[in-house]
């Protein structure tokens, strides 16, 4: 047994960094604090790679399956003797895989930010928040039990809130951060309820116990039935709700595009590569339960994923803000992963989708981070987010251009780039389980290629825009990460995921199925071709198209008015029709009653003053009547 206890430092280091920068940051020199943060991340990256190597290649398997290793675990908060929140480190294929992804991308982003955020106000604050995020994200993936996951789940939420709102004097940024936090918070409510139901049935939070295929949690099947569905299904659906929120699946996707208000490195790290895939990770984490005792919930996952991917892809075709396009493409790609999980089964060849999803998560992290960082470089050079204001940039930003192109090809699924392999696995999985889902994904593949190259062409080719000052290629601190990530997204396709990361830890035999691969490549190329025709040179085709499909275009351009719907619900329903009435009711009815009691007393005391008339004889009269009344009362009535 290898000793993994050092892994505690992987989450702990960024935390200490956060404390240090948070408390003393404003005293240090900005540059120093930036370097500190980056250095910390560097160490973590090294540690993660070591861990990955040791885990995958030196830890012994039991009958060919990777084991879940609890590196260390201590009780943080005791609820009952069975239920207690532990903090610890759980190593298994997916968590180790996530370690690599997070540390790599995060490290790249840190380096990139050194250049990108230079001479920004609050430089040290930025790195403090980044460290906080890294801490939370690492803690999330290493969680040994679902409640630890929830804790860090909340923490990534808040760090994303802080980072989106980094430019806290910009109202739009503030609004976006608020939106992101509240929407995800609402989703997390579902997650929490799911946990409650789950723990009530299984009396444990621990992942290993929960996800053990032979364990009681699964063996007891669905548990009792409530409103037609087994309780286990309910809990899994609720848990998935949390995933939907974090991963910006429909209908909780609305926060992600606005989240682009944050600094671009943040978008690359949090809203493309790591945090938004937490939902996928969550489902993968609970996968045995989904697959074995809550298939209905798994179906929900599949359909939500499929719908989102299509929905987002359509919108992406119409947006003009680079980062928003990328945001929607992120949503659609994550939809892919969800779908892949949804169509997967536990163990054997059934598990193809699971493996594919993890595979795509990995590659997507690379190329999407690359895309965002590239976009960042572009924005940095042009000082604009809108591709309508760009064009012909290829001659000014060579490095960015090449890396961006690579990324686009990867996401379009052109062999032999990594995207091809992962997407192909997903399509295969979908094909074997449900043809309709496969069709959707197939279409989405085309759309993806189209909108990515729409983006690419109109930025780097298209019309030769005149810039009032010629754009400069970004400094090395920014280009180096681009290159590294480009390399990553080219070659990460050859990693044998089927041997490493599978649903049951065993090796999964899968080979490229040409009769799926070839069409997918073709439709990718088709998409590129269309984009080439429409955007290589500036042409009237797009506008004409937009004119012909006026309404469709308008709806897609306005993101199908989902935001407006939410706005209506929150502003109108919650504020106007609940809170204000409640406040009114409280002031006027509840409080009013109390005041009424008081005033009635006063009033009454005013009315009865006539008794005290000051007339001796009236007093005497009252006296006599009183006496006689008492006499009558006690002699005749109440004896």
């Amino acid at each position, binding site marked *: 047994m290898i000793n993994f206890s050092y892994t505690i430092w992987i989450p702990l280091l960024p935390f200490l960094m956060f404390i240090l920068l948070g408390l003393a940051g404003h005293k240090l020199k900005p540059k120093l604090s930036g370097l500190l943060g980056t250095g910390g991340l560097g160490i973590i990256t090294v540690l993660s790679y070591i861990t990955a190597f040791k885990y995958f290649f030196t830890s012994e398997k039991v009958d060919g399956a990777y084991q879940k290793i609890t590196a260390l675990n201590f009780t943080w908060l005791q609820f009952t003797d069975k239920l207690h929140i532990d903090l610890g480190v759980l190593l298994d294929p997916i968590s180790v895989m996530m370690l690599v992804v997070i540390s790599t991308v995060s490290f790249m982003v840190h380096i990139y930010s050194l250049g990108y955020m230079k001479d920004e106000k609050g430089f040290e604050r930025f790195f403090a928040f980044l460290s906080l995020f890294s801490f939370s994200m690492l803690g999330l993936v290493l969680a040994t039990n679902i409640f630890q996951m929830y804790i860090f789940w909340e923490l990534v939420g808040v760090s994303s809130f802080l980072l989106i709102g980094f430019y806290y004097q910009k109202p739009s940024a503030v609004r976006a951060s608020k939106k992101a936090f509240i929407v995800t918070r609402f989703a997390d409510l579902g997650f929490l309820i799911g946990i409650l139901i789950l723990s009530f049935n299984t009396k444990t939070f621990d992942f290993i116990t929960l996800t053990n295929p032979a364990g009681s949690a699964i063996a007891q099947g669905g548990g009792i039935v409530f409103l037609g569905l087994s309780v286990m299904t309910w809990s899994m659906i609720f848990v998935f709700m949390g995933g939907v929120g974090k991963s910006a699946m429909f209908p909780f996707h609305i926060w992600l595009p606005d989240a682009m208000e944050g600094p671009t490195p943040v978008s690359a790290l949090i809203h493309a590569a790591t945090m938004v895939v937490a939902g996928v990770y969550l489902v993968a984490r609970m996968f045995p339960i989904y697959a074995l005792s809550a298939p209905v919930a798994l179906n929900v996952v599949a359909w939500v994923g499929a719908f989102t991917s299509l929905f987002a892809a359509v919108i992406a075709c119409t947006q003009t803000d680079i980062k928003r396009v990328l945001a929607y493409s992120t949503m659609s790609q994550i939809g892919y992963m969800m779908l892949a999980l949804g169509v997967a089964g536990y163990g054997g060849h059934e598990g193809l989708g699971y493996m594919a999803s993890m595979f795509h998560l990995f590659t997507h992290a690379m190329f999407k981070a690359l895309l965002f960082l590239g976009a960042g470089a572009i924005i940095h050079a042009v000082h604009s987010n809108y591709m309508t204001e760009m064009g012909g940039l290829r001659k000014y930003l060579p490095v960015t251009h090449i890396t961006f192109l690579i990324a686009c090809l990867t996401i379009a699924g052109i062999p032999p780039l990594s995207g091809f392999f992962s997407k192909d696995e997903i399509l295969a999985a979908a094909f074997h389980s449900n043809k309709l889902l496969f069709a959707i994904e197939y279409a989405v593949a085309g759309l993806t290629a189209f909108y990515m190259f729409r983006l690419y062409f109109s930025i780097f080719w298209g019309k030769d825009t005149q810039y009032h000052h010629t754009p400069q290629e970004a400094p090395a601190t920014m280009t180096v990460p681009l290159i590294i990530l480009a390399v990553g997204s080219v070659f990460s396709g050859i990693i044998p995921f089927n041997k490493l990361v599978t649903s049951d830890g065993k090796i999964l035999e899968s080979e490229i199925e040409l009769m799926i691969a070839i069409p997918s490549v073709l439709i990718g190329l088709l998409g590129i071709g269309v984009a080439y025709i429409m955007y290589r040179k500036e042409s009237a085709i797009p506008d004409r198209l937009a004119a012909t499909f006026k309404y469709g275009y308008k709806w897609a351009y306005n993101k199908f008015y989902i935001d407006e719907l939410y706005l209506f619900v929150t502003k109108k329903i919650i504020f106007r029709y609940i809170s204000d009435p409640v406040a009114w009711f409280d002031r006027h009815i509840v409080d009013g009653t109390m005041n009424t009691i008081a005033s009635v*007393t*006063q009033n*009454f*005391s*005013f009315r*009865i*003053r006539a*008794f*005290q008339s*000051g007339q*001796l004889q*009236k*007093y*005497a009269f*009252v*006296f*006599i*009547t*009183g*006496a006689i009344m*008492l*006499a009558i*009362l*006690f*002699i005749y009535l*109440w*004896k």
Partner: protein
Amino acid sequence: MSPGTFLIMRHELLLIAAALSVLIAEIFWNPEKKKSISLFSIILFGVVTIIGFLPSPAGALFGGMYISSGARLLMKNILNIGVLLVFIQSVTWLKKEENVEKISEYFLLLISTVVGMNFMISAGHFLIFYIGIELATIPIAALAAYDRYRNKSAEAGIKLILSSALSSGILLYGLSMIYGTTGTLYFTEVTKLFGNNNLQILGFIFFFAGMAFKISIVPFHLWTADVYEGSPVNITSYLSVISKGAAVFILIIILFTVFPVIIATWQKTIFVTSILTMTIANLFAIRQQNLKRFLAFSSISQAGYILLGIIGGNQLGMASVIYYILVYIFSNLGAFGVVTAISNATGKENIDDYNGLYQTNPKLSLIMTLALFSLAGIPPVAGFFGKFFLFTAAAQKGYYLLVLIAVLNTIISLFYYLLVVKAMFIIKSENPIKKFRSDFPTRFALGICVAGIVITGFASIIFEAIRNLSFGV
């Protein structure tokens, strides 16, 4: 019987001696030094009070017409303390020009009322009781009209004397019924012969009405406010504390010893009247502006709470009532002491005259607050303990509803007590009462009151002592 047995009625004898000596002093005193009569009589009364505390034999005289027992002696002593405080408080007021002539009358009359009360408390026969009660009332009426040149004073006098005459008439009518049905007026005999026939209950009700008048229980209370407002402050405090206390004592004695047979009836009576008293009095008190009138209504509501102790008809009840009277003497005299001091210094008696008092006279306003809190039953002052024991006594017999009503009433009373506190502490005033320093007697009396308010509660020994004494009445 040997003259030694007269020691049994030592209190009364001493008081009579004191009264007479004040009279004689008045005759032979040097007219220039009239003022010092008050000092003389206070010392005299102080001596009497102290002697009163010496252990004395219990027993009966005149074939049971006069009874003396531990409890009754205790009551007398408590009253003496109160009277002494009133005397000390009134020194400043008596120094005034228009009063100097009448100093000795003041003391003479008051001491004779005390004599009356003592006889009343020691009564073993309705005759003694009647003489005592009249002796305790009529001079007060004279004193209520003491300020010859104030209309209100005269009005107070006439209202008091006439309504008390009426009430004693009705009381006597009740007594005559009782006499007619039992053929005797000895407490012990009456108890034996008392049945449950309507005439007797009628008699009892009339008797109760007469007592209720003295304790000012609704609906027999209406004279109270006017008389309290009209009479000089010291007489008001005397009325509100001493007379009321004495009446409560004798009422409880008679209820417990003479009418145990019809306990069911008088418990119902008290149940009804106490609820009426507390509620009505509080409702009236809310609106009062004149402090004396205000305190009048507050003292009526206090009577309502006291009835809660009586209703139990148990030893705890008796103890708690006596204890409460003691606490009440200190608290009310504290409040009245402040009112006296201020009205002597400035002649102001309205609540809004007190606005911003704390800025100018912090000590007085603190004492006032303490006293009012004690009346409202706020810890840690004695009033809290007093009320708690009263309620406990009622609850012991299961009158939880009554207790609930009572505590809810204490909230109303807290409201108007807080109005005074608010006036003194919170409301700003452009012309507050000027800063003044009250003379020694006032400060001395107030000091005693504060000490009483603070100590009586914590020192459980006092309550325990009272309780141990209050078996045999």
